[in-house]
């Protein structure tokens, strides 16, 4: 149960900074909801629903990704390179998987907070989306996936600038391309096929179906879980190999 110690340390700072995270976490969703859901999307219908209803699951997916990935990746980068506090885990008599699981669960928590904020805000904007069990499962899987990716990238990347480069090359494009803001039916089939290689695409597909009461795409959910597992295991390997 060593992972609990690692997780509880994250939990402690999470509680201490809750309101900071809370208000900071509101800014982006408010901007996105205002610009796309309310401003641009007024009167537009997509796949048979109002654009606001259409876009909310996408915004939840991308915000969950951002919160989980950044909170783990950036903190890990700082604790490896600057404060060197990560070394305390490496010299402690605990296994790599406990370190990774504890850190990732910390990131999941941040992802959940971010998703919860948007669900509440979306209702204030008048969106009609339901938080079904499938939706919650998807949010959990998405935050686990991207917290694990943050862990992996944080272990592999040393410089803070490379962290930004990774963001610019992978995270930001994913935010906009992954069927978050537009329907994959609107782009040519080969583009849609490429977009389906991105993990976030499956998060928004699952989430949209779950929140709009459509048939849940279990295949996409399986892809999410597979990505999550792969990133999680790769992070464990990366931690094990960090002593060179």
């Amino acid at each position, binding site marked *: 149960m*060593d992972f609990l*110690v690692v997780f*509880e*340390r994250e939990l*402690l*700072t999470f509680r*201490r900074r809750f309101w900071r995270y809370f208000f900071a976490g509101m800014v982006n969703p408010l901007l996105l909801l205002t610009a796309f859901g309310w401003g641009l999307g007024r009167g537009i219908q997509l796949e048979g629903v109002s654009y606001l209803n259409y876009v909310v699951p996408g915004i939840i997916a991308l915000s969950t990704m951002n919160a989980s990935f950044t909170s783990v990746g950036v903190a890990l980068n700082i604790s490896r390179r600057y*404060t*060197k*506090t990560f*070394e*305390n*885990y*490496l*010299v*402690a*008599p*605990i*296994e790599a998987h406990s370190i990774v699981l504890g850190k990732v669960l910390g990131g999941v928590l941040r992802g959940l907070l971010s998703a919860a904020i948007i669900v509440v805000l979306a209702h204030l904007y008048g969106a009609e989306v339901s938080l079904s069990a499938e939706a919650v499962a998807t949010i959990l899987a998405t935050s686990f996936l991207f917290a694990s990716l943050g862990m992996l990238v944080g272990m592999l990347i040393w410089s803070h600038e490379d962290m930004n480069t990774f963001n610019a090359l992978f995270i930001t494009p994913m935010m906009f391309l992954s069927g978050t803001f537009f329907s994959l039916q609107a782009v040519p089939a080969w583009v849609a096929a490429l977009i389906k290689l991105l993990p976030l695409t499956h998060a928004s597909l699952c989430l949209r179906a779950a929140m709009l009461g459509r048939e849940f795409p279990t295949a996409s959910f399986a892809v999410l879980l597979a990505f999550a597992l792969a990133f999680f295991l790769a992070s464990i390997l990366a931690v094990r190999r960090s*002593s*060179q």
Partner: protein
Amino acid sequence: MIRLKALTKYYGDIRAVHSLTFSVARGEVFGLLGPNGAGKTTTIRMLTTLTKPSSGRAWVAGYDVVEEPLAVKRRIGIAPQHLNLDGELTARENLEFHGRLYHMPRSERRRRIQELLAFVGLEERADDLVENFSGGMKRRLLIARALMHSPEVLFLDEPTVGLDPATRRKIWDLIRSLRSEGVTVLMTTHYIEEAEQLCDRVGIIDRGELIALDSPSQLKRRLGSFTVEVYHSGRAERRFFPTREEALEYGAEHARCDACDFSVRETNLEDVFIELTGRRIE
């Protein structure tokens, strides 16, 4: 308690540590003395399982550092050179989480935290965030954290670097009281005085190689316990003698001109280092 056998580390083509072989006995305070970049920290990193050796082997508390890292980790405490405390937590929380990582039961954690905070004189700041601590306070807390789980072997990497003289003395007192408790200590330092004051034995390391190993007094005795420095026309010449009389005699004989002078003092480890390497330590 610690044994190194031809321990070697290369980073690419750069040889950081070359074939170190020595042992540290139980309860001994052992110092690795050498200039910055001599390979002291790399040696500690290998002994604490953080860095894999390129070749050679090492055992700590009877366990191979590469083969059985968890067994080694359970038995060692580390106060690294960089102050890697968790600044977002209080002093007490730093110790608490550390104790939990080492599976200490709750009652023992509570007792040990009180004991250590008193030991390092931080009781009054126990519940303040560590990011607000001064360098000296952080250094003391770092040592307390390394001792939290009562390790058999303690690694102190440059324990007083960047501290004012008063705080340095406090840390020295801490290390002395550890010795009286029988903890085995391997410390690195580039402060001569520190090694002389604290260490039972000193290994002098330069460019990754061990160039001398003995007690400070033996190292000095071998060179000559007394140093005479003869100054003429701005240059100083240094000679070593086993007795003060011989040193005085040499000085009187060789400082005869008007502008000449000489002084006699006890030999220190820095003299030993300079003689062995031809360079100053800092």
